[in-house]
């Protein structure tokens, strides 16, 4: 009897790779959405509280409080999902792989789990004592900073494990090599920025949702109303048939401001992601070529195009939001925002052209045209397929930066009037939140699937067999990057 028990405990729970993979995907993607929000929003809550203290601005204080409350509500759910993920999904369905990984990355996982303790203490201390610490805001800020540090380190340790799975550096399992494996730092920077951008997008979406809810039964503000009167008067007009209270008006203004705050953070941080993501991909190319090939040229290349499309949509939706806000406020150079949005749409279309449409290096070779266009060839001015997309990405960054800078300048000059938002602008912000969420899911799918047929690249296969062999590299056309 004991023998049978032992045998049972050593075998993974039965299931196919497909079903087990689907379970992992569902649980992991849910877990990632929550965990990244917690990490990013703790940074934004800290910033917001610091600004509130420095400027004696109650709006920022209220926003920080909202974020802390949302973290408490999500922390419990997120922790439960994490436990489900580790205890049941990984231990049950992927036991051999998980045991091997535990042995390799034992200390990283211990440190990661330890961070939960400090987070629980700090988060619940903040939640329970937020109002009590009203007169001692430095303590409140210090607790927020500590919470931020804890969450960041937790992300760092789990990034060590995640990046090691993709670039295990020939299986060298020393702690230093795990920590400094080739893709660890790019991934950590990518996630640090992405988390804040995601939290900003969630904040914008919450703000937009509340704004739309509060103005649901009201007509939109009239664009032809005098600009000096439009903001508050238009909100007053929105309350058709209702006696609008000052409190409600203040609420609308607050959520409008929250949306704007979130959009600016989301898009500004996202602007850095093409650089960071591209560098991350470059390190994958240098150290896990097969995975990189799968992403760029192989089975996942079309999924990667979805990723690029979603990135473009972030910039387009943000510039749409900025444009609508500037138009409604009568801000100078509003038309420039419209032009920037059109340019961003064109750049996104340029970047998402699939190989069969844009032509690849292999196509150019087949047509005996693998030399530059000025030499009568088929290659575009800046090289072949990949540089073509890189140029489009660089363009997105430059014009996206222009867009957010133009809006921030208008804001700092007092050209954006509170209360002047349209419901369309708020819908764009809501869409921005959805887009960023989708993008994170696609990114998770891309990274996890690029390793296939390995779980730990070149070391453990999808069938949980430990190989310790170098992965084969797919054939690549000559001259391909």
């Amino acid at each position, binding site marked *: 009897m004991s023998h049978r028990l032992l045998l049972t405990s050593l075998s993974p729970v039965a299931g196919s790779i497909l079903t087990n993979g689907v379970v992992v995907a569902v649980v992991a993607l849910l877990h990632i959405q929550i965990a990244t929000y917690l990490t990013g929003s703790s940074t934004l809550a800290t910033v917001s509280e610091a600004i509130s203290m420095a400027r004696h601005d109650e709006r920022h204080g209220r926003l920080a409080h909202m974020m802390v409350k949302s973290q408490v509500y999500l922390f419990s759910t997120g922790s439960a999902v994490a436990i489900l993920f580790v205890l049941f999904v990984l231990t049950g369905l992927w036991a051999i792989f998980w045991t091997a990984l535990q042995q390799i990355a034992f200390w990283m996982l211990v440190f990661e789990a330890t961070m939960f303790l400090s987070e629980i203490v700090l988060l619940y201390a903040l939640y329970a004592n937020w109002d009590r610490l009203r007169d001692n805001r430095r303590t409140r800020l210090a607790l927020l900073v500590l919470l931020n540090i804890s969450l960041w380190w937790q992300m760092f340790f789990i990034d060590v494990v995640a990046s090691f799975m993709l670039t295990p*550096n020939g299986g060298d399992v020393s702690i230093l090599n795990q920590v*400094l*494996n*080739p893709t*660890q*730092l*790019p991934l950590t*920077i990518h996630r640090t920025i992405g988390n804040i951008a995601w939290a900003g997008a969630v904040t914008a979406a919450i703000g937009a949702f509340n704004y739309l809810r509060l103005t649901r039964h009201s007509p939109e503000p009239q664009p032809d109303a005098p600009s000096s009167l439009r903001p508050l008067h238009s909100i007053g007009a929105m309350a058709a048939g209702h006696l609008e209270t000052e409190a409600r008006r203040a609420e609308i203004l607050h959520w409008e401001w929250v949306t704007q705050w979130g959009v600016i953070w989301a898009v*500004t941080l996202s*602007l*850095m992601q093409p*650089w*960071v993501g*591209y*560098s991350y991909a*470059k*390190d994958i190319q*240098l*150290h896990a070529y097969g995975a990189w090939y799968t992403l760029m040229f192989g089975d996942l290349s079309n999924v990667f195009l979805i990723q690029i499309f979603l990135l473009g949509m972030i910039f387009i939706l943000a510039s749409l939001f900025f444009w609508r806000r500037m138009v409604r406020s009568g801000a100078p150079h509003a038309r420039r925002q419209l032009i920037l949005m059109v340019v961003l749409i064109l750049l996104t279309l340029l970047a998402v052209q699939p190989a069969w449409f844009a032509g690849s290096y292999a196509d150019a070779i087949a047509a005996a045209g693998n030399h530059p266009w000025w030499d009568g060839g088929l290659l575009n*001015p*800046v*090289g*072949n397929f*990949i*540089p073509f997309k*890189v140029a489009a990405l660089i363009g997105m960054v430059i014009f996206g*930066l222009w867009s*957010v*800078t*133009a809006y*921030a*300048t208008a*804001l*700092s*000059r007092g050209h954006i009037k509170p209360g002047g938002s349209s419901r369309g602008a708020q819908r764009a912000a809501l869409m921005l939140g959805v887009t960023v969420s989708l993008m994170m899911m696609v990114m998770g799918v891309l990274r996890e699937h690029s390793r296939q047929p390995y779980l730990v690249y070149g070391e453990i296969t999808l069938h949980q067999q430990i190989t310790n062999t170098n992965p084969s590299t797919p054939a690549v056309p000559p001259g391909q*990057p």
Partner: protein
Amino acid sequence: MIISRWFTRPFKSRLRSGADWFEDRTGATELLHKGLYEAVPKKGGWAYALGSATLALILLQLFSGIFLLLDYVPSVSEAFNSLDYLRTSDGFGAWVRGLHLWGAYTLIFVIGLHMLRTFLSASYKRPRELNWVSGAVLFFLVLGLAITGAMLPWDQAAYWTTTVVTNIPHYIPFIGDGIRTLWRGGDFVGPITLTRTFAIHIWVLPFLLFSLIGAHLYLLRRHGEFGAWVNYDTDPDSDEEKQIGERIRRAEPPYPTKRIERRYAAPRETVPFFPNQLFKDVLLSTLLIAVIFVMGLISGAPLDGAADPATLNYVPTPEWFFLPLDQFLVVAPQNPLIAIGVFGVLGIGAALMLFLPFIDRSHERRPLRRPEVIIPALFMVFTVIFFAVLGINRLYNL
């Protein structure tokens, strides 16, 4: 008679008459007084000390460089041996070499901070545009000195750095190959390359550097230290125009600054340069130099094996301050984008930095009210730091 009378005079009187004679001919006391007792803004003195620290570190480089010249032989056959001798047989010489290296590292870091401070406080705006331009050129000259200095030891690192760096001009269209040949003294790196790089390092660049330092200091004295916006705030409870008028009326030279918005013509409160600001300047400079002395002693300056052009497996690694550029070249795909990256993106970046005062013409001085320059600049700073981090990561995983 005259001589005996001079000898019989009291010592103090003789000293005074000697000093008067010197003052009469040079005006030194007046110059010293003018230099020491000028007004500077009261708030933010520690941040302004970065400028003086930069000057102190440049002087340290000058003196430690002179000491190194006593031993260093600028020839491909002897350059490495002369430095190897310092390492193995001359402890003081090795220490001085360490000072020179760590002094250069610290200088680049401090000059970067100084520029960042100037940028954030908008001190480059009218009428101080040329202060910024001369400072930016000084920064580029210091980088030039650093890279040419890294080529001189003629060890493996220096040889391959020389090979890579002298090849960079090749990417310039039309004239690139000519510049490369001129610098190398032929198609390949060789003895003339070292001689020319040495001449650039100890004569050409220092001449330009010290000329520009003179101009930079002159302009600083002419317009006065701007400081930061905090020195120009007004009390919201009383008449702003009256406060500014009162400030300008009792301002000491070099304030009120000419050709500037009235609000920024004179700081709210000033202190004399001596002793207030000079104390901070000296303390910061001394601390930095002390750190450099210790690092020079503990860590010294590395020296690889002698240069061997026949090596096939040596991977050259750049100095830390060129890591962002190096990483940028790594991620730039294919030759056309390398050329665009080196001379397009960096050229545009350098031009934007150089001509910043002529691009940002607004009157705003507070960082949060200048998002049109602060956001792109922060983006660039982030990119540089990010590439540096990735560069370190890449070198570790080579």
